[in-house]
């Protein structure tokens, strides 16, 4: 799958988050989901069978974008704005 891409419009100021330890540069105002998609991250988590998941609805109803943020599980990346230094980890299904 090809990564999503940002349209050439102006955004908020630069900042960084991490995803599974990897630095993901993004902008103030980005949602975590958009930032990760644009960075080419195809798997926001895996199910207990090991299958990958990524945003499906982008509006907070499907939970396929759910990640762990700063230690809190099941946070919907699609409705969560990035903050500088945010520590995002992928969801491991049970």
């Amino acid at each position, binding site marked *: *799958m*090809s990564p*999503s*891409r*940002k*349209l050439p*419009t*102006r*955004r*908020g*100021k630069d900042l960084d988050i991490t995803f599974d330890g990897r630095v993901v540069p993004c*902008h*103030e*105002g*980005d*949602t975590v989901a*958009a930032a990760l*998609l*644009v960075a080419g991250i*195809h*798997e926001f988590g895996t*199910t*207990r*069978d090991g*299958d*990958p*998941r*990524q*945003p*499906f*609805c*982008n*509006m*907070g*109803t*499907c*939970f*396929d974008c*759910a990640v762990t943020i700063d230690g*809190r599980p*099941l946070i919907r990346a*699609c*409705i*969560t*704005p990035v903050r500088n230094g945010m520590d995002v980890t992928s969801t491991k299904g049970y």
Partner: protein
Amino acid sequence: MYDLAVIGAGPAGMAAALAAADAGLNVVVVDEQIRAGGQIFRQPPIEFPDAALKPTAGYGWAIELLERFENHEDIEHLTSTTAYGVLRDRDTDEISLKLAVSGPTVSGVISARRLLIATGAYDLPVTFPGWTLPGVMTAGAVQSLLKSQHVLAGEDLVLAGSHPLLVVVADQLVAKGARVSELAFARGIPGPRELVAARRAIPGHTDLLAESALAVARLVSRGVKVSTRTIVTGAFGDRAVESVELARVDRDWKVSNRRRRREASTLVLGYGFSPSTELARQADCRMVWSSPKGGWVVAHDERMESSAPGIFVAGEPTGVAGADQARAEGHLAGLSIARELSAPRTPSGATFAAADKGVSRAEQFSTVVQTMFEPKREALATLATPDTIICRCELVTRTSVDATLDDNPFVSTASAVKLQCRSGMGPCQGRYCEGTIGALVANARGTSLAEAGHFTAHLPVKPVPVEALTRLDQVDS
């Protein structure tokens, strides 16, 4: 204690809040999204310099509505806050409504004399092999990423669906430089006779359908293959979408064996919408089945009050009908509540008459669109093959659901299937599998979709930490 708590800051919620606040009530609006607008007017973040909404043609009124809403002194808007249930205290003779909320600035209950549920809708789930693969997204997802995040999801897209919105999305994507290889429409494009009939039903109204026809022409001229009587039957790939399968269907959307594959990295689905009614169900509002209106919708009277005393409803939860009707219903609901609570500036009879007319006018158009684009639910339910995951959260396959029905002949409702095989018991609370489960039950038992019933909704209607529940008995947040 607020006079009115509104859940949802889309067109219905905003219109209701404004009507009530203009009448002098104190209003709080709770919404999970970062900004007001709901899904249809999902705004870019304020941190983006180009933070203004650029609504689709025909919705120019949205800008003014948003501006008035965001600047109104008597409306408190709690963003990124989940309203997760309705509780009732009955210590005195009056019912005291308590809205359970969890968010960055407030966690506990909000007391209000009246509630308005304006929770919108979500893209209709369609279950086929591979629908859980990364790269499969809803039309709403792709559109919101585009409009509110200025992000183009994927580069090599196939769009499949049946709802006119899909054509609008395709048009927007191509205009921004996306490569859309095919737009597969389940029915035919509405012909001249249908369009004329639609026009007659809606004299003087914006003709979204004619716009769609123009959009289709634009797409074709840009090299997009537009196919009709075609639905998606599969998405394939190792750990993301690499190809999709499309099939010819008959008038009833029954799949023929004329199938073909094409490469794609993103599959966009636009088969319609399901009303978001979990909060209404949790609050024990009576539900009614209406397939053209989106399935299970919330019953209400002419004042927009539901069957639960003190709880009103407006917008898509009453029937998927679009933003014009949502605004009209929200406006009417706000006025009704203001009158009922003897607001300082109670609206006049003339204002009410105009509001009623507004709803009727909007209804003329929406019923036409609903009938024209009603999804063929039973046919869509047959797309799932034995290995297809029906419940995305609990990973329940079609085989498992069929076995549940076969092994337990005494099971005859969607809820009983849910209890037995766990479909619907995950974080999405059954939103993405209820329709399919209902259709499979109806099919197996020879009953109607209405008789198969819906899932019960429970507090919290969206997951919240157990720790948040400990705040529910606070005196007041």
